[in-house]
């Protein structure tokens, strides 16, 4: 009976109803917040009843009794309230479930199935919510693997498998020449060669093209650079497209003119790109037929290219995707030259002709050339035909395939990891599962529960992955090197994403099903409460196997990353033969129509140079036809008296040709090994008068291995007839084509007065980019019709040339990091699980006097044994797998032992750290507690 409370003045007060309720009502299963609210209201109701009784005139004690009679069965109230509260907590799911159950029992069939699926889903959701860390971990791991795959595969598919944006693109091929005896690939054809190709039945059309820079001059007299491609008049028919406005070229546009001069009466004929038409001429419809001013003279606009037109040729040949204007190549095909090779050639196979058939026909042409032309026989010319698409992706394909393989490895490691985690979880829930199974829970239902759980996980991961892939793709595309042709806009490929997600679902389901089948199958066989059930069923072995596989696969990636990093390091350390630091580069083009003699061009050149030199902070200025690492160079055959001794030109070699101004090597900081630089007189002499050249160390060594090159004569077929030039200097080799690998020897000629465009180098005292505006101003002050382009530090050109390698290195590095983290997570999990399983045993050993260090080492050894096994498998697998990246490696062999063992040792070191966590836990076990558990 509750005690009435007395106040200080002796007046008897009513019962403290709140305290009274608290004493009687126990609600352990209700949140404390709700409990307070319930006690609050119930005590208020009792107090109300008490007060009413008092109002009726009952004495205090009787009034209290009346109120107390309202609640006699407190346990019943407790049960009622707890039921109502728990229903509230899962109200949403329950009501859906109730609905479905109702529908299921009234209508049966599909509704019943749906009801049970929803029930499973709710169980899964509840059990996953109970283990948020687990859920988060699995979802993130899987998402990383799936996301990386979706991103990489989307790019690969868009690039490697998309159709070219031309009509019937399957019939388009590129025809190049390889000069076997001179180590030259992808050499263009001579106009005369095209005549031979065209006579074959294999081709419907054969088109040639060559690109050069031009300028266009606006009404404000300023010029801007134009990327012009001069094409044979059947260019559009060959590729299969029509003009957006106006017309493409016809035969009459390609007829040679008696008088070469370009005048308003005899203008150039041009087709402009859609973008140029829109941006420069406001998409004027009446532009067709108008004359516009090109740097080379007036040009009549006859058509506009389709809006999305792209020129898609092998990027290594120097043809970019964007074209500003097309001009017709004028030639008399009956007298087409045979000895100047400059036409990149694209052909359309005749209907029904296979590539193999065309190749056979080209073999015939090749054989005929070897008979007819010594030049082809000497160079070892091979005609190589390749589908236009393959030609386009030639340089990027190995990189993409490598990356796809790496991404797949990551997915594999992630899936294995997830299956490991699910397995450990199954083992932990073994007791629950065993009880359910023993209590008559159907086996199929238990399996379904586990399966639903892992599928929910995989689905969650897929959602995260698809988002991650979006970001991943943006990351990729921002860093992608120029070699990646954009055939189609690259986006997440829906069907690929779906396939990847399906794979992920299937993997997760299998990873759960296999161990779960073993567990539920034996759960009734007396193993009911045994914690060792998993290992008794070989689950322990399965786990170990998974860890070994993960370690092995991660090591593969780590070795790949190691090889790529070493290759990148040697790329960065490679001597370029010049110093790109603190050097500003720019490109100028002058209107050829006004500077139409070598004298005029020379004067302008000298003036520009003087102005640039006068800029504060500029210490040296020079110029070259085409800067190293920035584009395709002219090249051609050369030899010494020795090669020509037999009167045959068969032994001629191929060299890169560069025309340079005086002081070029000094400005570029290229070392002179012998002899002297060009003098001004060298460039001002007519080209055939006492010609002199400078050669690089490679050429000098090849030509005169035993004597000095200076003073020697070199036979060069750079003009007709060929010249004999005297070597006046030898410089160290400059990297012209690429910053690594084989590089053709170079011959430098004095003077830059042949063309209208040239590249400048300005060595500066400070940050080169600061001078950009001043340089531009200086040049335009001399002549506003000079176009200035590509004003950038030399170092920017150099890093562009390394972009593909650094892109690949970064990505493979990222992937291997990912895989290593995944493998370590897996390792940690397994060791932790082992420690948990061996709690009793370890506790017992500690109780029997084993030292803690001994236990620590024991657990560590168990973990590292797994790692070591994985590493051995990984090392063995790495040897053949490294073939995949072999073509991407620079300065390091794919069998580089240092990298292999470095990667293995690194992995072992991190793995030791990962094992130390659970191992130290084991060593800190309290035997008193562990032994009491499970009793």
């Amino acid at each position: 009976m509750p005690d009435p409370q007395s106040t200080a003045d002796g007046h008897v007060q009513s019962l403290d109803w709140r305290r009274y309720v608290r004493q009687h009502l126990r609600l352990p299963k209700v949140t404390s917040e709700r409990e307070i609210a319930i006690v609050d209201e119930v005590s208020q109701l009792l107090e109300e009843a008490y007060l009413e009784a008092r109002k009726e005139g009952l004495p205090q004690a009787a009034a209290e009794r009346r109120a107390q009679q309202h609640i006699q069965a407190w346990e019943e109230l407790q049960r009622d309230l707890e039921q109502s509260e728990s229903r509230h907590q899962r109200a949403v799911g329950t009501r859906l479930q109730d609905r479905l159950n109702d529908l299921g029992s009234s209508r049966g069939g599909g509704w019943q199935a749906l009801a049970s699926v929803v029930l499973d889903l709710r169980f899964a959701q509840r059990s996953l919510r109970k283990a948020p860390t687990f859920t988060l971990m699995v979802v993130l791991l899987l998402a990383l693997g799936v996301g990386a795959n979706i991103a990489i595969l989307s790019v690969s598919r868009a690039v490697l498998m998309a159709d070219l944006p031309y009509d019937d693109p399957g019939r388009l091929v590129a025809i190049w020449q390889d000069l076997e005896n001179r180590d030259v690939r992808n050499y263009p054809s001579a106009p005369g060669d095209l005549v031979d190709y065209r006579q074959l039945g294999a081709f419907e059309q054969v088109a040639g093209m060559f690109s050069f820079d031009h300028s266009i001059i606006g009404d404000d007299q300023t010029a801007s650079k134009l990327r012009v491609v001069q094409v044979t008049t059947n260019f559009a028919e060959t590729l299969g497209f029509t003009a957006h406005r106006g017309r493409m070229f016809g035969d009459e546009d390609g007829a040679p003119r008696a008088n070469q001069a370009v005048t308003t009466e005899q203008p150039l004929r041009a087709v402009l790109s859609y973008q140029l038409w829109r941006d420069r001429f406001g998409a004027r419809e009446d532009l067709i037929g108008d004359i516009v001013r090109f740097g080379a003279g007036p040009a009549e606009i006859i058509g506009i290219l389709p809006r999305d037109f792209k020129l898609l040729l092998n990027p290594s040949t120097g043809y970019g995707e964007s074209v500003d204007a097309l001009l017709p190549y004028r030639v008399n095909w009956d007298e087409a030259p045979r000895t100047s090779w400059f036409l990149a050639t694209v052909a359309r196979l005749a209907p029904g002709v296979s590539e193999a058939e065309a190749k056979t026909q080209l073999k015939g042409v090749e054989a005929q050339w070897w008979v007819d032309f010594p030049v082809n026989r000497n160079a070892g010319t091979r005609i190589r035909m390749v589908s236009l698409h393959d030609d386009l992706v030639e340089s990027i394909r190995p990189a993409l395939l490598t990356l796809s393989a790496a991404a797949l490895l990551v997915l594999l490691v992630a899936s294995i990891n997830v299956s490991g985690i699910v397995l450990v979880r199954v083992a932990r829930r073994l007791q629950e599962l065993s009880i359910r199974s023993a209590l008559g829970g159907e086996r199929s239902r238990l399996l379904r529960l586990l399966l639903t759980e892992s599928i929910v996980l995989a689905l969650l991961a897929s959602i995260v992955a698809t988002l991650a892939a979006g970001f991943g793709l943006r990351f990729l595309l921002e860093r992608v090197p120029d070699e990646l042709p954009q055939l189609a806009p690259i986006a997440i490929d829906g069907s690929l994403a779906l396939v990847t997600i399906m794979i992920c679902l299937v993997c997760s389901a299998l990873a759960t099903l296999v161990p779960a089948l073993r567990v539920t199958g034996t759960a009734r066989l007396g193993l009911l409460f045994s914690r060792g059930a998993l290992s008794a069923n070989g689950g322990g072995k399965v786990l170990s196997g998974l860890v070994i596989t993960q370690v092995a696969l991660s090591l593969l990636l780590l070795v790949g990353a190691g090889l790529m990093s070493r290759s990148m390091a040697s790329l960065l350390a490679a001597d370029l033969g010049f110093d790109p630091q603190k050097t500003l580069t720019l490109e100028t083009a002058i209107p050829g129509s006004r500077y139409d003699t070598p004298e005029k061009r020379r004067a302008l050149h000298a003036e520009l140079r003087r102005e640039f030199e006068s800029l504060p902070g500029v210490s040296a200025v020079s110029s070259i036809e085409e800067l190293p690492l920035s584009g395709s160079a002219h090249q051609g055959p050369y030899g010494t008296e020795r090669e020509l001794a037999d009167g045959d030109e068969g032994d001629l070699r191929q060299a890169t040709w560069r025309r340079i101004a005086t002081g070029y090597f000094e400005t570029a900081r290229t070392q002179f090994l012998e002899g002297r630089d060009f003098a001004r007189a060298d460039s001002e002499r007519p080209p055939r008068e006492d010609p002199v050249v400078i050669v690089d160390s490679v050429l000098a060594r090849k030509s005169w291995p035993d004597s000095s090159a200076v003073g020697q004569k070199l036979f060069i077929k750079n003009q007709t007839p060929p010249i004999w030039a005297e070597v006046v200097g030898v410089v160290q080799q400059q990297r012209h084509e690429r910053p690594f690998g084989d590089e053709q020897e170079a011959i430098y000629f004095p003077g830059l007065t042949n063309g209208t465009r040239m590249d400048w180098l300005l060595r500066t005292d400070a940050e080169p980019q600061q001078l950009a505006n001043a340089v531009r101003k200086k040049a335009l002050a001399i002549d506003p019709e000079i176009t200035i382009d590509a004003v950038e530090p030399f170092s920017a050109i150099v890093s562009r040339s390394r972009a593909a390698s650094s892109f690949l290195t970064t990505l493979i590095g990222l992937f291997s990091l990912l895989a290593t983290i995944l493998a370590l997570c897996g390792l940690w999990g397994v060791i932790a699980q082992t420690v948990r399983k061996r709690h009793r045993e370890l506790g017992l050993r500690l109780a029997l006097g084993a030292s803690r260090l001994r236990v620590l080492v024991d657990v560590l050894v168990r973990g590292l044994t797994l790692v070591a096994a994985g590493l051995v498998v990984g090392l063995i697998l790495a040897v053949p797998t490294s073939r995949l990246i072999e073509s991407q490696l620079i300065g390091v062999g794919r069998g580089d032992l240092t990298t292999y063992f470095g990667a293995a040792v690194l992995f072992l070191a991190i793995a030791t750290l990962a094992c130390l966590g659970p191992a130290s836990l084991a060593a800190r076990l309290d035997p008193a507690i562990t032994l009491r558990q499970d009793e």
Partner: protein
Amino acid sequence: MFSPELKKGGKELLVLSLLDECDRHGYDIGKLIEERSAGRLVFQISSLYPTLSRLENRGWISGRWVEKAGERRRRFYRLTKKGRAGLRETTANWHEYISAMQQVLEPSHA
């Protein structure tokens, strides 16, 4: 078949129909049940409170503490939109139940 919760539903129905008239506090609801049944239905806090709590958790009624000047602090309940729909359904069920009972107890003389 009628829901086995019909009995519980009876109590709920009473509470809901009283709240359908106007907002009331818990004790007031109990007293009204007693008064209107002329004391035949005895109101007990032990059964009233779980009913209120259940209905509130279900979102059919909503309660809030009100402190009026010169009056005690009380929890007032109001019928929600969902509760009004629930009331209609429960009433219909109840009528059906009663008529079924009647048909059994006083079979029609066909």
